C-alpha cells in the first residue's frame, strides 16, 4: 500500500478517508498505444495499479476491455475515473466494484513442491478450494484455481507452509450479473 500524495503542492491536513479497493472496467478502442495511455495516466498521477487485465472483446468494433484493480481514498477513485474519461480512445468507465451485482474472477496457477504428509494436506486443501491439479510429479503439483481475489489469496496463504514455490495469476476479470450491461 502506498500513500497518495496531495494533489496540491501545499500542505493538506491528513486525509482521514479510508482507502478502498476498486475494480474499474474500461472499454477502449483497440488501437496502438491505448494501453500505454491508460497505464501512463496511472503512473503520471501516481495512482496505484494492483492488477491489470486486457484483451479485445469485440473484434468487429475493435473494442477491448481493460480491468484495473486500484486502491485509493474515494475521492482519488473518483478522480481516476474522471481522468480516464479524458482519454480519447476510452469509451466507457464503470466502477464494477461499486455494483452490488458484480461477478469477480481470477485464475491462478500454483506450484507446490513437497513430499509425504505435506502432499496429502495440499491435495486435501485443493479439493476444498475446487482447485484442479493440472500437472503432477512425485514431488510437485501445479494447481489451477479460479475465484475472487480474496479466495485466491486465501488459497495461497494455505499453500505457503506446504511448499508453495511459484504462482502465476491472470489479474481480475469482472462483469455484471443479470441482463444489464456494464
Amino acid at each position, binding site marked *: 500500500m502506498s500513500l497518495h500524495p*496531495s*494533489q*496540491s*503542492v*501545499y*500542505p*493538506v*491536513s491528513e486525509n482521514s478517508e479510508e482507502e478502498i479497493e476498486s475494480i474499474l472496467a474500461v472499454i477502449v*478502442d483497440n488501437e*496502438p*498505444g491505448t494501453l*500505454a*495511455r491508460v497505464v*501512463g495516466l496511472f503512473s*503520471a498521477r501516481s495512482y496505484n495499479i494492483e492488477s491489470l487485465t486486457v484483451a479485445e472483446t469485440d473484434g468487429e468494433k475493435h473494442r477491448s476491455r481493460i480491468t484495473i484493480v486500484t486502491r485509493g481514498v474515494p*475521492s482519488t477513485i*473518483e*478522480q481516476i475515473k*474522471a*481522468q480516464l*474519461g*479524458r*482519454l*480519447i*480512445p*476510452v*469509451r*466507457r468507465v464503470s466502477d464494477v466494484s461499486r455494483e452490488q451485482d458484480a461477478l469477480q474472477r481470477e485464475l491462478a496457477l500454483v506450484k507446490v513442491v513437497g513430499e509425504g504428509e505435506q502432499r496429502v494436506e495440499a491435495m486435501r486443501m485443493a479439493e476444498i478450494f475446487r482447485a484442479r491439479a493440472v500437472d503432477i510429479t512425485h514431488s510437485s503439483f501445479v494447481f489451477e484455481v479460479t475465484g475472487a481475489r480474496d479466495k485466491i489469496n486465501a488459497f495461497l496463504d494455505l499453500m505457503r507452509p506446504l511448499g508453495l514455490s511459484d504462482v502465476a495469476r491472470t489479474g481480475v476479470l469482472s462483469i455484471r450479473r443479470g441482463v444489464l450491461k456494464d
Partner: protein
Amino acid sequence: MTTRAPSKETATGDDRIIKAGAELILDALEEQGVEVIFGYPGGAVLPIYDALHRRDSIRHILVRHEQGAVHMAEGYARATGKPGVVLVTSGPGATNAVTGLADALLDSIPLICITGQVARKLIGTDAFQECDTIGITRACTKHNYLATSPHKLSSIVHEAFHVATTGRPGPVVIDVPKDVQFEEAPYVSRKDAPLRAARADVPLTDRQIEETVDLMRHARRPILYTGGGIINAGPQASAALRELARVTGFPVTSTLMGLGAFPAADPQWLGMLGMHGSVEANHAMHDCDLMICIGARFDDRVTGRLDAFSPGSRKIHVDIDPSSINKNVNVDIGIVGDAGKVIQSFLDQWQRREKMALYDHGRTKEWWARINDWRGVNSFAYAKDDAVIKPQYAIERLYQLTKDRDVYVTTEVGQHQMWAAQHFHFEEPNRWMTSGGLGTMGYGLPAAVGVQVAHPDALVIDIAGDGSVQMTMQEMSTAVQFGLPVKIFILNNSYLGMVRQWQELLHDRRYAHSYSDALPDFVKLAEAYGGVGLRAETPAELDDKIREMINVDKPVLFDCVVTQEENVFPMIPSGAAHNEMLLGGSVTGDEIGKEGRALV
C-alpha cells in the same frame, strides 16, 4: 476547397480524387480553414513542404527554433480563438516542440502539431532523426496520432481538429511517416470523417442551476472567481459574465489566465487573485460565503494553503472538464459545461426569479463596505523614484501610453509577468497571453509574433524580463523576415528577479546564480537582427522612448533599465492562506514557515 496543383490526379471508381499523403494533409487543413502554419522544414517533412510550395492558400511562417513555432501558434490561437497549426520534422524537430506542447496542454490552448517521422519500415531501427514522438508527446498532448497509412490521413486531421477544439481545448500531435506523405489515397472530407472526442457530455441539470441561483439570491458575501475557461468559451461567455455581474451586483476576480474576460475599469472588478493578487480579491475569497468559480481550476497559485482556503463558503464550480471538479477543492455544486452556456442558464434563471420578487441589492451592502476597506490598502502601490525607473512605473506608463490603441500583450515568466498582470489593465478578452500553467520562460516573444501574424495592424507588446527573453531571442529574426513589428519591452533588472526574490525570502539573500553577469547589449542585438533597439534609463526619458517604440514600424527590443532588487507584492507566501499576505516594504526572511520551504 482549392487544390491548384494536386500531384497525380486519377479518377477512381467512387470518383474520389487520389492524392499523395502530403496533399491530403494540406487539403484537410484548408477545409478546416487554416490560413497560416508555423514551421521548420527537415528531412522527414520534405514532401509536405514540397506540396506547400505549390499552393499559396496557406501562409507559412518560418521560425528559428521549433519551440518558437509552438508558442507562435499558441499566441495566434489565443488572439483569434482558432486553433494554431505547427509543422516540424522528426527527431529533434519533434522534441524541440515538446515544451510548447506541454505549455498548451496546461493552459488549454487548441493546437495541431504535425510532425514528420521516418519511413514506416525504418521505425524502430534507430534511424537518423528517429525518435518515439508518440511516446514522448503522449504525456504533453490531449491526444496524438501515428498515421500508419495515407487512407486514414485526412480523417485523422479532421478528428485532430475536433479533439483540439471541443471540450477543454488542447494540443494534438499527428506523426506522419515520410513514406505516408507520398503514398496515395483518396481524400475524406470533414463531413465524412468519423469524429471522436473526450467523453465529457454530462447534461446540464435544471436542479443545479436552480440551487445555484437560490444560493446567489441569498448570499451576503458572494464572489465570482473566473478563469481562462471563460476566454476559451468565446466572446459571448465574457458578455454573459458581464451581464451576470451587472444583474447581481457581485464582485468579480479572475485568475492570471482569465484577465480581460471582465473589464478592469468596472467598479465591480477586484483585480487578479492568487499568490500575487490584490488584497481585496484574496480577502474576499477568504471571507466570502458563496464562491462561484467559473472556468478556473483551484490551482495552487490561487488557493494557497488548501486547508485554510475560504473556510466559510459554499462553493460552486463550473468547468467543462469533469476531472477538474473536486480535484483540489471539494465543492458543494459541480456543474460540467461550457462557461458561456452555464452563465446564460444562471442569467435566465435569475431573471425568472426576478419576475416573482425583485432582488434586494442591500444584502451585499456590508460586504461591499468591507471590500472597499481592503481596496483602501492599495496593495499594488510601490515607492516612486525620480532617479531610476521602477518596474511597476514602467508598466504603468506603458499602459497609459498604449491603452487607447488596438493593443495585445504577451509576457514571459517571472516578476515582469506579475507586474504586467497587476499594472496593465484589460477591458476585453483575447488581449492577454501569458504562460500561466507551465510557466514557460521564453513564451512571450514568439507568442507576440503569432499574435502579430493574426493581427498585422495591431500593437503587439511582449512584456519581458532580461532572463526570459534570451530563451527564444532567435525569433527576432522571424519577426524581421516577415515584417512583424512586435515590441519587446524588457524590464531589465540584471537578475532572474523571481528567483532572486525567493532567495531573498528563503535563503538569506544568497543569490546563487540569479545575477545576469554577461547580459548582451539589447540595443546592438536588435540592430544586429535588423530590428530597432531603444534604451531608457531614467523616468524622465521613459515616455518619449515608449512613444518612439510605438511609432517604429519594425520589431523593437526596448531595454528598460529598472531597479535591481524590487520585489513583487503583495505575496501569499508558500504554505500560507489568503488572509496572510505579505505587503510591500521590508522583508525579514522569516515569512515562510518550515512546511512552506519545501514548496514551489
